[in-house]
């Protein structure tokens, strides 16, 4: 059973489009995260939700909007995609607001043309 799953795995789209990435975890964790990995493999946190409440919001353009319908799901919606949004996006989850280790999903490779 996959602990943290993401869909889609690959996403190729044109500039200006709107797209969503979905994330689900079946670990019973209360905190979920979105990270962006750029072309140099550098990982940076974007958002974190704890029990559906936003607790971390890094300096991310407001074209990015996370949504957490319940504590097992954290989706990422991106409006007006730009070339610079091309990256691998990882979802993660943990217990206790990240005091413990975070479990990562397989990633979504987004390519904006």
């Amino acid at each position, binding site marked *: 059973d996959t602990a943290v799953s993401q869909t889609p795995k690959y996403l190729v789209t044109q500039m200006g489009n709107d797209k969503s990435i979905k994330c689900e975890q079946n670990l019973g964790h209360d905190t979920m995260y979105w990270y962006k990995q750029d072309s140099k493999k550098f*990982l940076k946190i974007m958002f974190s939700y704890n029990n559906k409440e936003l607790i971390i919001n890094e300096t991310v353009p407001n074209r990015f909007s996370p949504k957490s319908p319940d504590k097992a799901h954290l989706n990422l919606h991106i409006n007006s995609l730009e070339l610079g949004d091309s990256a691998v996006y990882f979802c993660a989850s943990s217990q206790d607001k990240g005091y413990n*280790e975070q479990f*990562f*999903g*397989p990633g979504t490779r987004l390519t904006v043309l």
Partner: protein
Amino acid sequence: AQSVSQHNHHVILSEAASLELGCNYSYGGTVNLFWYVQYPGQHLQLLLKYFSGDPLVKGIKGFEAEFIKSKFSFNLRKPSVQWSDTAEYFCAVNDRNQGGKLIFGQGTELSVKP
């Protein structure tokens, strides 16, 4: 601001060689420390973690790391690498008071020659 620095961008070793990857962080508070590994085309997996206690921690696949508080370091070691250890290795710091935000180092690409 917190930061994590990994000394080596790319390390190339032959099988059976010993490995040490450096990691330093800048933060004066109480932190949790992690090493994650990313095999080619895969997601991040936890190698080991340090929260408190014995500063020498053992992880999976024969990896270990030593936390030296005075040096703000958390170096990763393995006595004898295998070809299957070829991967990207990330050191990360988690400030217990900042909602679990993981700050990652730049990553070290390890290539092991058979």
